[in-house]
């Protein structure tokens, strides 16, 4: 994350000190950090800040969500597409605890975010005061940094640190818990951006010998394979990555969060890794001779059983976070540092290579996956509508240029499998935490983060109802998002597991749903429900042509399955193709 890419501050650091209230200082500090959009919800302990915000409407746009979880997810969506730090503003106690899920999600997915929560008056701290919660204690394990501000004098300093920490190195969420008296009291204000903390080195120094070793191992490879993670996107290293891959002739697979770092149609792009990823990248992970992981963390959904994972390969791991190296997979060469710096250093020492025979092996597996799964999912001629075909039609209709936001479940896997990308930062999904309810508010945030891009939010009937109140935010601000509800009237992914692993005992997964179109209509969101395949194309066109938010509900097959599937904890070489087929 390059903080300098953020909007230049309107208020420059002041040499002349002014005496201001803590709340006023907070707003000015946010402006100095280039913040122009804040997602929040007011309440008792944060009211002085909202009062100060009232005077700065031109500088900071505040989006009033309908629940604090929505504020945090929106801030995440905003950050993920915009390269900026997302900001959420909530009150103490329940306001802060409602934000916990989003904060954890941001921690898991390395999303730069600053959450500002009000706190009771400092003299009441620890007394079980009204709406008091131990926010520091609760959020410490799920944040990159937390700080409780109890004096107005510390606000500017704390904000400056918070933004530095959230955005630099491996990004993450920071919580500032600001006592009400600190918001009200006055002090002198001057602002200085933080660029250095002695206890925190965001980007470890590259190690020359490791760079050389990595290049040597790659040069010796006959069957190299790369795993591309979100670190590439967070480090703005997409071009450096493509240069690296092309010089080495290295095919690659993406983690779910690494999707869109390289356009879908790049000849070296073999698709998605992991449990519901494509067949060839999973199989070839266990057949390559050199495995190159870049900005990814070997999540269990990617690796399956570690005992059978890439045992044949020399593993090179590029990562900015030293704690990720050797955490799950033992590596041969560890390249610490920022991929934007380290990749070109390695590329420079690499020999130009092509591995046509090795690449052809991927095609064989792709063909198998296409025949057994993709073709049937994308181009069915009869039967109920399939999730994959909807995603496919939407991505084609947007010329593959839209931002795809998803919730969590079957539709998420279908979206990540079949949505196509031409630009980076086009996939917003809850990867690590798998948070149902993420999609709708994250999509709202994404639209604010990239107002010129089409935002398509894929949701299921389960996840939508977890944060459906954000229809209110969409209505209030006229947020132009396209919501595609893939409705199977089931908690589909859990149902899939029940079918496969729990003897088809569908315990609490079937849902009686409301009339979603009527609900949307109540919020002034135009909508249409599609049940027939032949209506689909026109409905998608109508949705995209509509100037404003739109809910397209597509009733999809009740018992659809996401394949391929690597059962949890199994080897990634054992892939279920469905309908009794396996490899």
């Amino acid at each position, binding site marked *: 994350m390059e903080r300098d890419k953020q909007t230049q501050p309107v208020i420059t650091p002041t040499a002349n000190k002014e005496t201001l209230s803590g709340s006023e200082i907070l707003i000015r500090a946010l402006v100095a950090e280039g913040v122009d959009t804040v997602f929040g919800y007011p309440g008792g302990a944060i009211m002085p800040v909202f009062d100060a915000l009232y005077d700065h409407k031109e500088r900071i746009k505040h989006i009033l969500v309908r629940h604090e979880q929505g504020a945090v997810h929106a801030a995440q969506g905003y950050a993920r597409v915009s390269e900026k730090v997302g900001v959420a503003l909530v009150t103490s106690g329940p306001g802060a605890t409602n934000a916990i899920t989003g904060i954890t999600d941001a921690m898991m997915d390395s999303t730069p975010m600053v959450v500002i929560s009000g706190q009771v008056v400092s003299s009441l701290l620890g007394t079980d005061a009204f709406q008091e919660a131990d926010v520091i204690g609760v959020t410490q394990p799920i944040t990159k940094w937390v700080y409780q501000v109890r004096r107005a004098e510390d606000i500017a300093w704390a904000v400056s640190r918070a933004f530095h920490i959230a955005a630099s190195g491996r990004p993450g969420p920071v919580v500032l818990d600001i006592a009400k008296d600190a918001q009200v009291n006055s002090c002198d204000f001057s602002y200085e951006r933080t660029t250095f*903390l002695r206890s925190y080195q965001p980007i470890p120094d590259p190690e020359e010998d490791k760079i050389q070793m990595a290049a040597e191992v790659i040069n010796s490879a006959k069957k190299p394979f790369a795993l591309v993670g979100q670190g590439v996107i967070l480090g703005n290293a997409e071009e450096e990555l493509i240069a690296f891959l092309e010089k080495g002739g290295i095919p690659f697979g993406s983690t779910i969060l690494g999707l869109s770092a390289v356009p879908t149609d790049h000849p070296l792009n073999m698709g998605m890794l992991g449990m519901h990823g494509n067949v060839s990248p999973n199989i070839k992970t266990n057949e390559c001779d050199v495995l190159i992981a870049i900005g990814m963390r070997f999540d269990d959904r990617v690796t399956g059983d570690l005992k059978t994972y890439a045992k044949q390969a020399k593993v090179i791991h590029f990562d900015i976070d*030293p704690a990720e190296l050797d955490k799950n997979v033992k590596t041969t060469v560890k390249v610490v540092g920022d991929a934007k710096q380290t990749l070109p250093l390695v590329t420079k020492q690499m020999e130009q290579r092509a591995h046509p025979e090795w690449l052809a092996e991927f095609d064989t597996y792709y063909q198998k996956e296409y025949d057994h799964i993709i073709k049937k999912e994308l181009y069915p001629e009869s039967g109920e509508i399939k999730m994959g075909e909807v995603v496919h039609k939407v991505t084609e209709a947007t010329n593959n240029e839209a931002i795809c936001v998803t919730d969590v479940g079957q539709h998420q896997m279908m979206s990540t499998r079949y949505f196509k990308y031409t630009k980076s930062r086009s996939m917003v999904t809850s990867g690590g935490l798998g948070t149902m309810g993420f999609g709708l508010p994250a999509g709202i945030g994404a639209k604010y983060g990239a107002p010129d891009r089409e935002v398509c939010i894929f949701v299921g009937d389960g996840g939508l109802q977890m944060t459906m109140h954000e229809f209110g935010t969409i209505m209030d601000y006229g947020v132009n998002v396209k919501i595609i509800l893939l409705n199977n009237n089931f908690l589909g992914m859990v149902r899939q597991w029940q079918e496969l692993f729990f003897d088809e005992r569908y315990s609490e997964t079937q849902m009686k749903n409301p009339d979603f179109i009527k609900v949307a209509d109540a919020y002034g969101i135009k909508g249409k429900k599609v049940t027939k395949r032949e209506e689909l194309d026109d409905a998608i066109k109508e949705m995209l042509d509509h100037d404003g938010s739109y809910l397209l509900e597509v009733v999809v097959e009740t018992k659809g399955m996401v394949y391929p599937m690597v059962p949890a904890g199994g080897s990634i070489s054992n892939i279920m193709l469905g309908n009794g087929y396996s490899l």
Partner: protein
Amino acid sequence: MNDNKTLYTITIFSENTVGVLNQITTIFTRRQLNIETLSVSPSAIEGIHKFTITTFTNDEEVMKKLVRLIDKRVDILKAYYNTDEDLVHQELALYKLSTEKVMEHGSIEYFVRKYNVRILEVSVDCVVFLKAGHFDETQGLFEELSSTIGVLQFVRSGRIAITKSKVERLSDMLAKREEQKSLLLATQQI
């Protein structure tokens, strides 16, 4: 319970901010490690606190990962681990004995000579011994006192330790960070 396990000593230097201990213990909890002993105090450098924590594990990899996770926290300056061979370490123990029982027992010279005990207090009610040493030594005295005179109260401190090696890791690290800071400030001015 700790058969085949090695006792590791983890040394942590942190900024003196609120809640650092919580951040550290959370990492132990998540990795399912029990803290055997813990000692915290201001270090030789002003504003920097030193934590000395001991824990048992049978896998050095666990220690490597633990230390990296601790080191990663923003407020932590430096974290590393050692085994006993690398360290000079010490614990303190206090033993409160009934003066009456001590008198009945007769001589305390034996304990002073054998265990190098210091006597901190003698009053009508109690005698307080102090013993510094390794765990086995303070434990040995405790057991012998228990079986002879009886111990009214006993307390043992967490371990404190210093490394035997020549390298002074924290000051090296701080010096390097200062260098990086000046470099950073210089590039910002350009």
